[in-house]
């Protein structure tokens, strides 16, 4: 079979899209990789290495850089950044995609489409009781990642001071029936506690508190890490009821203690926001009528050559996204070879 003529459209240049494109290229196919931003790598490219004293914490963020390195030397992938999908319409046995690229509109038929458009971090503004955007020194986990990655330090947004008391609030936008998010975002315990360990290591004086419902097992090293974690971080199995600003731009929260309600305050409070379906999902859904799963993310429809890989299919870690994308490579290749 002449593989060079078998075009596959891979939408999204995050870790899943990169993995799928690389896998298909290795199989000898000619995938097109479309990214709307001006760089590949997606969310994970903005995440920090969370190693503590030379010991990897298994967050997997660096795997994106490895994929990017591999991509740079893979000629069989046609990569378009700053490119938007205008529309996708059925054509014959495949799909006709109109791509808005920096060099103008391109119309190209594809036999298969792999949706790797990823997720969108939950926007805490949509739950005003969280005080985000209203109360100073409340930030999201993603903002903390970026801060650590770019500056290597943790500082209060309001005055650039080093936080002495810091708190993480888990499950923000996850495990939330009211928001229509009947799922655990899977990554938040991992990223929050890994960052917390790194911060504790760099700022031993800083007290860390973690408000949570259930701590999820993340990474193979969890059994080694978890038993000692209580010594580094104060775990409080309560979700705060109210968030407000106090003297010196400290963040106040009200917390149930069992026999009363206590007011606690912190220099910096981090909302461990979860994953929500990407806003792009609806368009792809409409164009390709891809099925939506119980959690509200997309599912593959192999019969019509529509595949979903990575966090477009549901909340998952970088490592799981890679697994999912590797699996998708096999399914896509199977489809192209005319095999179920």
């Amino acid at each position, binding site marked *: 079979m002449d593989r060079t003529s078998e075009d596959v459209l891979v939408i999204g240049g995050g870790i899943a899209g990169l993995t799928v494109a690389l896998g298909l290229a290795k199989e000898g196919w000619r995938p097109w990789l479309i990214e709307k931003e001006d760089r590949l790598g997606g969310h994970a490219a903005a995440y920090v290495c969370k190693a503590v004293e030379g010991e990897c914490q298994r967050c997997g963020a660096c795997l994106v850089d490895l994929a990017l390195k591999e991509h740079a030397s893979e000629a069989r992938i046609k990569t378009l950044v700053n490119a938007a999908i205008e529309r996708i319409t059925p054509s014959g046995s495949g799909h006709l995609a109109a791509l808005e690229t920096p060099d103008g509109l391109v119309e190209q038929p594809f036999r298969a489409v792999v949706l790797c458009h990823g997720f969108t971090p939950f926007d805490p503004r949509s739950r*005003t009781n969280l005080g985000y955007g209203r109360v100073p020194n409340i930030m999201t986990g993603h903002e903390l990642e970026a801060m650590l990655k770019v500056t290597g330090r943790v500082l209060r947004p309001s005055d650039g001071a080093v936080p002495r008391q810091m708190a993480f609030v888990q499950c923000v936008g996850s495990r939330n029936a009211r928001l229509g998010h009947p799922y655990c975002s899977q990554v938040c315990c991992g990223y929050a506690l890994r960052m917390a360990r790194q911060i504790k290591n760099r700022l031993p004086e800083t007290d860390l508190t973690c408000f949570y419902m259930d701590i999820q097992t993340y990474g193979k090293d969890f059994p080694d890490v978890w038993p000692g974690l209580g010594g580094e971080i104060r775990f409080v199995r309560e979700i705060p009821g109210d968030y*407000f600003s106090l003297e010196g731009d400290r963040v106040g929260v009200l917390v149930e203690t069992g026999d009363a309600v206590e007011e606690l305050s912190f220099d910096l409070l981090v909302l461990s926001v979860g994953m929500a379906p990407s806003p792009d999902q609806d368009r792809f859904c409409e164009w390709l009528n891809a099925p939506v799963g119980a959690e509200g993310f997309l599912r593959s429809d192999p019969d019509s050559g529509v595949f979903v890989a990575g966090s477009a299919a549901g909340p998952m870690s970088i490592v799981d996204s890679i697994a999912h994308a590797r699996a998708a490579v096999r399914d896509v290749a199977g489809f192209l070879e005319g095999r179920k």
Partner: protein
Amino acid sequence: MNRYAFFLGCTIPARSRNYEMSARAVAKRLGLEIVDIADFGCCGFPMKATDQAAAGLLAARNLALAEAAGMDICTLCSACTSMLSEEAHRLAHDAGHLAEANRHLAGIGRSCSGTARVRHFARVLIEDVGLDRIRESITVDLKGLPVAIHYGCHYLKPSEIYPGWDDPEAPKSIERILEAIGARPVAYAGEKDCCGGAVLVADEDTALGMAKGKLDHVKAAGAKTLCVVCPFCSVMYDDNQKSIENKFETRYQIPVLFLPQIMGLAMGVDRKELGLNMNVVKTKQLTGEILGQDE
């Protein structure tokens, strides 16, 4: 200009006539046509705890009356607002409930279709009159009178029965009205806290304790008056202020004014017409400062 079925409920005509008087005075100045419907009865709220079905039925009856009169309802009491809005919401969204309600209303020769809209006086002011017209109606400069706002609960919540209305976690509506009439809303801790009115029946100590917390914060914030939009809240902060002072051996002397009373002052309405002499905590000094005279 629309006409509104003016819903007073139980407490206001008997216990908070100053609220009714000031609201009528302000409505007149702003050209709001409010119509009294003699048959309006209890909104149902006080029956909710014992028998919510019966409570809903009382609300449905009032809604039926408004429908028959072909008018939307304008309320003053926040509890009435939520009870009536909640029932209106159910009647409009739950066909089975609508049928059930009509089955009972038929027994007194009435019926409803669930179309009557219910809004609080303050909401009508913002949505139908508009802040510009309110601004134009001002004749007295309040010189940035520092006012603490108590929004209360049922004025905003449950938010699902008030689509398109104020955010319960960060309300702004009354603030905007007060700014429009030249007062200065002052932020204070516990702004969103409940007055405790609904607990009064079950446990007076708890209720007074809740009201005390609010008065402490309001005093600390240096507000000259506390602005309310519900007679229950007024009962807690105004009528009970003395007993709170005695119980907790403290002193506030914070005049508690209904929103239309403050608006009336800015519109140059006479103290008596606004019922300001009926407020429990004396308001003379406050109005004196505002009007620059001593009556």
